[in-house]
């Protein structure tokens, strides 16, 4: 290559008329350029609102009172924790989450074990179990609200026939929380069942044969073989169900609206109340970040457990 051609090439590389795309290609490697559009969209759709709402959470900003917008520091966070209804909603969320996830896991495991050991009719049982999962949560909520109606519902009709009266399921504070927990269990146990059943059916048969040869009882086979091998799947089911329970909204909103009083108000409903009933965007954003922190801590716990399960 002659000097002249090298000079020409150099000229073309540093020349002022070099197209923008070419210059960009030189400074941004192709693989970064390829993900750039997705990165920009992600930033705009996820990071943008995230940053925006951090700002909002530091302001007194009630949408219907635009003349009273002011910087309030951490006052919204302090307000949330000093508000008994918010603290109550945190407690309700814990009770709701622990009770639904525990019972769903127990029942899901039990059903999965029974169906796994069925020699015939497995398909029918599996399909029947899936029905609640196919229903829209809002439809489920309306259906149960009607079933539990003290005057028109079949549940109270049957109870009254056997002399148990007509309890006001959704109007009594203790029964209301029990009702929404039971409906969640009815709706979501099939999910846990399905995940665990799929896991059981993929376990290698040799291990069970070896355990049988060693004289292990069915209980020993369950505790010694099934449970340890299913651990990753159990954790997946628990993560999904716990996250769902923390952000549960539609069913409770339709069935009780969080009432009576605040008896069934979870943190998701409290956030809705602050942001979209009271239009208190500042407080609503602060509460959202508190939920974010709760979910974040839970996620770290579960992810660590999963990593340990994989290692062992």
């Amino acid at each position, binding site marked *: 290559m002659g000097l002249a051609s090298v000079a020409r090439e150099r000229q073309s590389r540093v020349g002022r008329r070099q197209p923008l795309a070419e210059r960009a290609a*030189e*400074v*941004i*490697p192709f693989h*970064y350029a390829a993900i750039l559009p997705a990165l920009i969209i992600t*930033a705009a759709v996820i*990071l*943008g609102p995230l*940053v*925006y*709402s*951090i*700002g*909002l959470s*530091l*302001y*007194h*900003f*009630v*949408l*219907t*009172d*635009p*003349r*009273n*917008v*002011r*910087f309030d520091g951490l006052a919204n966070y302090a*307000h949330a924790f000093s*508000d*008994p*209804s918010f603290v109550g909603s945190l407690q309700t969320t814990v009770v709701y989450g622990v009770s639904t996830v525990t019972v769903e896991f127990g029942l899901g495991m039990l059903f999965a074990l029974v169906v796994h050991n069925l020699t015939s009719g497995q398909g029918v049982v599996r399909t029947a179990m899936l029905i609640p999962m196919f229903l829209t949560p809002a439809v489920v909520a309306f259906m149960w609200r009607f079933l539990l*109606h*003290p*005057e028109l519902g079949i549940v109270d009709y049957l109870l009254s026939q056997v002399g148990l009266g*007509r309890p*006001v*399921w*959704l*109007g*009594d*504070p203790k029964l209301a929380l029990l009702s929404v927990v039971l409906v969640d269990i009815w709706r979501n146990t099939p999910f846990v069942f399905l995940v665990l059943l799929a896991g059981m059916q993929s376990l290698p048969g040799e291990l069970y044969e070896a355990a049988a040869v060693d004289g292990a009882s069915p209980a020993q086979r369950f505790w010694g073989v099934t449970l340890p091998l299913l651990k990753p799947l159990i954790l997946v089911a628990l993560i999904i169900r716990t996250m769902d329970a923390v952000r549960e909204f539609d069913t409770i909103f339709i069935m*009780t*609206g*969080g*009432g*009576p*009083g*605040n*008896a069934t108000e979870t943190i998701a409903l409290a956030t809705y*109340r602050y942001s*979209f*009933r*009271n*239009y*208190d965007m500042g407080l609503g954003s602060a509460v959202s970040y508190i939920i974010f922190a709760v979910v974040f801590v839970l996620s770290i716990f579960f992810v660590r457990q999963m990593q340990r399960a994989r290692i062992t």
Partner: protein
Amino acid sequence: MAQQASSVFSRRQALRAFGLTAAALALGACGPQGSQPAATQAPGAAPAGGGGKSLSGSTVRMGALANYKGDAIEQMLPEFEKSSGIKVQLDKLPDTNLSDKLTVSFASGSPDYDVAMMDEPWVPGLASFLVNLDELVTRDKVDLSQYVPQGLAAGQYNGQRVALPLDPNVMMLWYRKDLLETKGLKAPTNFNEIIDTAAKLNDSSSGTAGISVSAKKDAQTSTTAILLLWNEGQELITPDGKFGFDSPAGIKALQTYQNVIQYAPQGVLSYGATEELDAFYGGKAGMVFYWASIGPNATDPQKSKAADKVGWTGVPNGMRGVWNLGIAQESKNRDAAWELIKWMTGPDGSRLFTSFGGGHSPRYDVLKSPDFQQKYPWAGDFQKALEASRARPQTPNWNGIQTVIIDMTSAVLSGQQSPEDAIKRATEQVTPYLKS
């Protein structure tokens, strides 16, 4: 090596740019958007008192309620479009969605509608985004004496007229004449008599309760609680800005409510507005204290079991609730929007609105017309009840205050808390909304 350095540098630049963008967004977030009212725009070139013709061809966007009221508006609009040449794009939305959409889009400075249909409690929150109509009312010589004053008052906030009334509502007593007659009772004329009559009518052996009310976590429950507070002679927000329930009168009001639900159907703790009305229509209760807008259903044999036996009466201090029409400040079609509002709340529009079953009229000339009185036989009682009605406090934080009252009342009625404890907690919760 040099190329590597250049690549790293450009990445840094990209990161810096991204950081700046994020910071700009954050600063944007910190800005009190919508806090500045838009500069008042002078009315358009439309000639006074009938700019309709010069505005022919323009389009007005209107947000309305998606129920029988919205349906009536839809039916009456062709008449307006024909006479004015102005096209109306009607968007019908359910109550909460309409309120959310109006609030968010008006506050963001790009309203979805030129004309907004607003329930009375929404007016203070939206007032700073609405056109002051006083100037237009004067310019076009709108005869305000034709409106029931309580209807007009709903559209006024901080001394400014930001809306005109379309459909006033007031709470009235609806009762079963046959049941009262059987027990030798007269129609009650005040709240204390309503409670006494409920106790006397209540008959568990026949399965007919004295009165149907809401008792679950529902807006209607807070409405009854407020009525009972007023009945104790107490304001909801006192003149010195305190929460009215935080008083002996407040405790008495909630105790009375606990007493009233003893005369309601057995499942009352799960009753919201829908169940409350269903119980009355289904013959399970002898009375219901509810908005006048239920009149057509209560007296319709298709919808109410004892339609021909339903009587009605207004009592003093019934709550008023008025649907209003206002114009967005940022609207680009203010003059056409004003023509629409003027027509809809005027004699022709109001007559059509009521004849299509949209609701009642705020105008004396329509209220007193034979057509209206024939279609709404309770017209006379309605007018009297409206004139003797009481309004909820005008505050942009009404939603926050109402939510606290709903939670408080629901907690007391369901037995979760005593009236004293519930009021103490509610007072703490409501205070921030009373301050600002």
